[in-house]
């Protein structure tokens, strides 16, 4: 699967994460901004990567701005951003969930 168009999901409000996905050409690149990056940065990146892998996407740029989101929120926002980008928001990919 390939990301062609940029899409965004989530907000910058407390306990949320804003995920922007866009076309990449150099593997899975994740740029994370988070106040808790030092402690939880690796976990957040891993959670996002797992979702990307489930979609079978090999090249993607992801910008994630975290405001202390829980794992389930990170997953949900990442799935929504990817589906918006792929134009498949109307037909959720249940296997990814």
């Amino acid at each position, binding site marked *: 699967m390939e990301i062609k168009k*940029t899409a*965004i999901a989530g907000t*910058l*409000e407390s306990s949320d994460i*804003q995920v922007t996905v866009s076309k990449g050409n150099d593997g899975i690149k994740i740029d994370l*901004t988070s106040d808790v990056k030092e402690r939880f940065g690796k976990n957040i990146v891993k959670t996002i990567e797992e979702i990307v892998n489930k979609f079978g996407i090999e090249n993607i740029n992801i*910008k994630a701005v975290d*405001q202390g989101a829980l794992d389930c929120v990170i997953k949900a926002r990442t799935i929504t951003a990817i589906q918006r980008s792929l134009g498949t928001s109307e037909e959720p990919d249940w296997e990814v969930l």
Partner: protein
Amino acid sequence: MNNLELRNLNLKDPDQFEQWSAFLKSLGIGNFSSVETDPLDGTIGLFENNQLIATGSYAGNILKYIAVCNKSSNNGALFNRVISELLNILAQKDIFHVLVFTKPKYCKSFEQVGFSLIVKSDDAAFLETGDQSITSYLADLPKFKDTEKIGAIVMNANPFTNGHRYLIEQAAKNSDHVYVFVVSTDKSLFTTKERTEMIKAGTKDLDNVVVVPGGDYLVSYATFPAYFLSYENDKIVYQTTIDALVFKQWIAKQLSISTRYLGTEPESRTTKIYNEVLEEILPPDVQVNVIPRLCDDNNGEIVSARTVRLAIANDEIAKIKALVPPTTYDFIIKNKQVLQDRIKKGMKISGN
């Protein structure tokens, strides 16, 4: 935060404008001249008990007039909410690369919501966020060996004249390679696409010239906001300082550009100040080489794009032939009606 209400503000409505401007004034922003407010595409406000407590606007992909009530205990959350709402509005318009010019002391707030600082002067900071960055912009441009002599010119070419051609020729003679950066702001009589094509067509024979887009990184007077500055008169100095810093710290550095070529500017005050700021900021990293302007053989006047635009407006096309390369002349002949219609519809032609 529960009883917060988000509203779109209509600044054309006198009552809403009054409430909005009074709120900003209370926070030290006092410039509401039409130059600043007319370009705004939209404004949002957060209200608590009908009281405006946070606001933000956008013009194209630039965020403006961001302000949050400083009496509120949760102003950090309000700031995040405003930025978040604005980014989502822009995303719906397929705008994902977003810029902001602000006071240096607000850099941190923007960085916390994912913005990256591009450059900072004493008076202003320039930040960006989204699906592009100055790094990705520069990565997409052609590169040359840093042992070679690399020159650069920035031009609007509205339209491309013999004067522009002359400046590029001089740079090409003195360099192994020359980048010509085309100003990407669409506020000119000729569109960015048209200007780029005219430059490419008019320099086809010069093998060491490469024409590239300026992207969002040639900071334009047309889009640079002044509302947050204390002295509007100095807007041009602030804007050109930011522009010069972007060129020096990013563009020239990454592309190994050693010389920036400029034309002398006897007529336009704006361009004169711009040149002065560049000469102050760029050296010693980047040499500034000022080339005297080409003069018309017939009357000794300098060749200027403004003269060409005026001739188009006055339907004196014959005057143009001596001032522009054949490629530009052909383009103007072919598109005369379209260009004159744009002028009739109010496109300004007298500026730079």
